[in-house]
């Protein structure tokens, strides 16, 4: 029997892999997605691990996913709906809290409880961060220029960047450079005096990053969490109805509707090359699948250090890949609750629990939590990004019962130099549960089921090297034309016909879909196909 040759094989059915697959299939290619798990979605999944409950057991909230992609790929038709947060809060050790309200004036009055000055400074802060977002947003859906190339398109893209810089005054330019390089703690100090407010805002600067709030570069990480939107509301976050798997499910349905093929339970062990050109993949069971090209949704380390023979790659390139920072820094505790937890500090009828809850009320505590990570321990007093999506979404748990997602930092990839053990994992979970229980009496009694994921589980189950949720940290040295490797920031690799489309590439992690879309655009360009089904990026007016 003659082996079928696909036009493209996508290694890994994460959201970016599926986005690339959709666009290629729509452009007329015959595309196969191979996924090692028995389900697609990578880190954007909804898993039923206990009867009646769905867990967004990896990524858990949505903002960055590009609306252009939702529209091009008809994701709403395939079930995607995003539900905006209605509130949020940090509970403080003195029994109070700082709430986050969506309405401008109540929010201002909430901050004014702590500081009148901060309440007003918040507008200035929001303006400045939004200005930075407006600068970076148009870059998301464009391939980063290669500054070492003299191709007309790269020069044109460099000019685009230069023009964007040129629109700024010298002062704004200086501000931008400062913002990209400073620590989130220093940045917030320029606006605010209230510890708890700074702690609340600093969270976005450290999520998914093996840096503390006082580490330079964390202000940019904050930006990465603000440049999304929910239906035009820039910086807003929401829940995918039915969990984050709803995004992958919609992508898979869209892909299949346009004729694409998905194979689950198919673990790629190797990318096949012939005369320096990718020509297929080999699965764990030895099966070979042929393809005219291979697109890897796996992270850059997994792709080039595990799936490709080193002899096929240039030495310096490999060196850069080995040194790409992809350090695990977080863990995840997913909990099924038989009733809504009570937080006595929060006022009755407050919308605070319909968004993100936290217990880290100062930058100092957050930095201490990071100190534990540096010593290769999980934080004794962790920073938790706690959500109860079922406060808004009725589809993830039986009525009256709730799913709670606890994203937790910091969690090292190795524990004091050794691998994680089950005992470590349980002790990590206990640090999370005991922190929540300190603010929510009777919390432990409400737990029906719990899934605990340390970097060990994230690497083994999802395939993220070291459990890094962004497939590589989002620091200034690892973005734009330096992501993942200078000279290879345009979704191509040193091997002809092998592309990368995951979050290791520009513009990086978070469930954004932009890397997948940009990769598809580059591939279609190489094939001299026009990406008809790809609408222009939305204007930033």
């Amino acid at each position, binding site marked *: 029997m003659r082996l079928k040759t696909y036009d493209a094989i996508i290694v890994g059915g994460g959201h970016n892999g599926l986005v690339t697959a959709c666009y290629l299939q729509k452009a007329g290619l015959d595309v196969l997605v191979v996924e090692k798990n028995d389900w697609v979605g990578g880190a954007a999944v909804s898993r039923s691990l206990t009867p009646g409950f769905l867990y967004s057991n990896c990524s858990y909230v949505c903002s960055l996913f590009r609306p252009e992609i939702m529209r091009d790929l008809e994701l709403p038709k395939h079930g995607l709906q995003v539900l905006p947060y209605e509130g949020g809060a940090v509970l*403080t050790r*003195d*029994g*109070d809290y700082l709430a986050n*309200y969506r*309405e401008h*004036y*109540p929010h*201002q*009055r*909430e901050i*004014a*409880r*702590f500081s*009148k*000055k901060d*309440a*007003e*400074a918040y*507008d*200035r802060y929001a*303006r400045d961060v*939004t*200005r930075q977002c*407006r600068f970076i947003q148009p870059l998301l859906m464009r391939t980063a220029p290669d500054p070492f190339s003299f191709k007309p398109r790269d020069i044109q893209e460099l000019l685009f960047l230069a023009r964007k810089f040129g629109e*700024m*005054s010298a*002062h*704004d330019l200086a501000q931008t450079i400062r913002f990209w390089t400073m620590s989130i703690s220093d940045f917030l100090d320029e606006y605010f005096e209230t510890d708890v407010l700074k702690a609340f805002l600093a969270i976005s600067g450290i999520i998914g990053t093996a840096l503390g709030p006082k580490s330079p570069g964390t202000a940019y990480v904050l930006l990465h969490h603000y440049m999304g939107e929910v239906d035009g509301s820039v910086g807003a976050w929401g829940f995918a109805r039915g969990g984050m798997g709803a995004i992958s499910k919609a992508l898979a349905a869209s892909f299949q509707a346009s004729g694409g093929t998905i194979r689950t339970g198919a673990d790629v062990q190797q990318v096949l090359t012939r005369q320096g050109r990718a020509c297929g993949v080999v699965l764990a069971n030895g099966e070979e699948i042929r393809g005219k090209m291979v697109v890897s949704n796996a992270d850059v380390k997994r792709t080039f250090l595990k799936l490709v023979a080193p002899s096929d790659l240039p030495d310096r390139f490999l060196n850069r890949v080995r040194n790409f920072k992809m350090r695990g820094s977080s863990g995840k505790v997913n909990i099924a609750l038989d009733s809504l937890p009570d937080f006595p500090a929060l*006022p009755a*009828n*407050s919308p605070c629990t319909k968004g993100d809850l936290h217990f880290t009320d100062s930058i100092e505590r957050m930095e201490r939590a990071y100190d534990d990570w540096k010593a290769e321990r999980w934080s004794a007093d962790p920073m938790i990004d706690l959500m109860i999506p079922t406060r808004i979404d009725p589809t993830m748990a039986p009525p009256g019962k709730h799913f709670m997602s606890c994203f937790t930092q910091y969690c090292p990839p190795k524990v004091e130099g050794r691998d994680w053990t089950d005992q470590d994992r349980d002790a990590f979970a206990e640090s999370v549960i005991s922190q929540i229980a300190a603010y929510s009496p009777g919390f432990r009694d409400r737990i029906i089921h719990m899934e605990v994921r340390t970097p060990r589980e994230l690497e083994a189950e999802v395939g993220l090297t070291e459990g890094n949720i962004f497939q590589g940290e989002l620091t200034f040295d690892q973005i734009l034309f330096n992501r993942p490797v200078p000279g290879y920031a345009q979704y191509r690799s040193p091997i002809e016909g092998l592309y990368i489309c995951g979050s290791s590439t520009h513009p990086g992690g978070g469930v954004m879909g932009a890397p997948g879309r940009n990769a598809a655009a580059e591939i279609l360009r190489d094939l001299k196909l026009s990406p008809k089904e790809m609408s222009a990026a939305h204007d930033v007016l």
Partner: protein
Amino acid sequence: MTMNASVLKALQTHIDQPIAETPFEPRFDALSRYPDWYVWAGYKAAHSLGDVEAEYTALRNAAGVFDVTPMNKYRITGADAERFLNYLTVRDVRKLAVDRVHYTCWCNDFGHVIDDGTLFRLGADDFRLCCQDKQYDWLTDAAFGFEVAIEEETHHVAGLALQGPTSCRILKNMGFIGVEQLKPFQIARYSLGEGTVTVSRTGFTGDLGYELWVENGLALPLWDQLFEAGALHGIRAVGYQALNQCRIEAAFIVPNADFMTASHVLRPDRARLPDEIGLDWLVDPDKPNFNGKRAILSAQAKGTAKHVLVGLEIEGNVPAEGAIIYHRQKREAGIVTAGIWSPTAKRNIALASLDRPFGTTVTEDLWAEIYALCEGRYHKLMKRVKIVPRPFLKLDRRTTTPPADF
């Protein structure tokens, strides 16, 4: 729970009442014949009480009462108060006598206007700044190195604007002896029950009028006595729509409507120098250094201001709010920021921001493209506009002292 936390708990009224109410709210609520509210700086405020025309007429024919409580109010006191405010604002505060008010504006380091407002000199070292935007953050930052205390009074001091030809008569009926001798921008104090009403001959209508300031506790007694005193003099509560017509006739500008405040703009090119929004007359180049001075004077010297605020008279009677202004019906020259048919001047008037040289050296052959939505269809009108002096309406009674009696 610590003491601090219990104080914080007491400040949670916004949970049950997300929009604040001024002390006059019960009176407005009782008079409102039609629910037409909006949110002004976090407070519930009336667009109208049901009859904009009657409210406008009261302002120009008798007396209208508008609640100015949501206006942000800051009390600035201390040995350096004058020196600080002279550094903060563009006008010379040394020339502002005690018990006088002046209109002013303040700018950031680039000379871009942060806000405009009225500065009340209540004593040698005692000032009140009234303005549209929140300024506590800016004021406290700017006060570095000055011996001043800055206190926000927005939520403690209630204010009413009493505007119109019979306003002086009404205050006399209140027993405010000598109020007719108050000159424009002058301040006087009168007792009311246990407390004091601060009266300033100021307003936003370009008409005879006063603003009355009291501690919150005196607000309702003030209202009740005022309406009793005005019963035979046509006193009427008014909402913002009527006031807005008057202020356009008077060519007063509104921050974040006729210009965008420097502290809010996302697009840096939207910020404006005083010279670009008709406030150049406030800038005093001879006074000691003030924030933004270098940038403002350098723009004047180099002629780099890009925009200009103008008053327009537009053909026909269709209000031109939001219209694009064209030169020779082709080249875009600016935008109308506020426009109405003026009931008193009987002209179609507008404030517009033009891109220089339009409005400065090029003043002819300007047109407004007006889209009038009528029963589901746009009438697209191209109307000739003429640059005219501001204000559009000049009323002698605004400045005559003592005002005519009624």
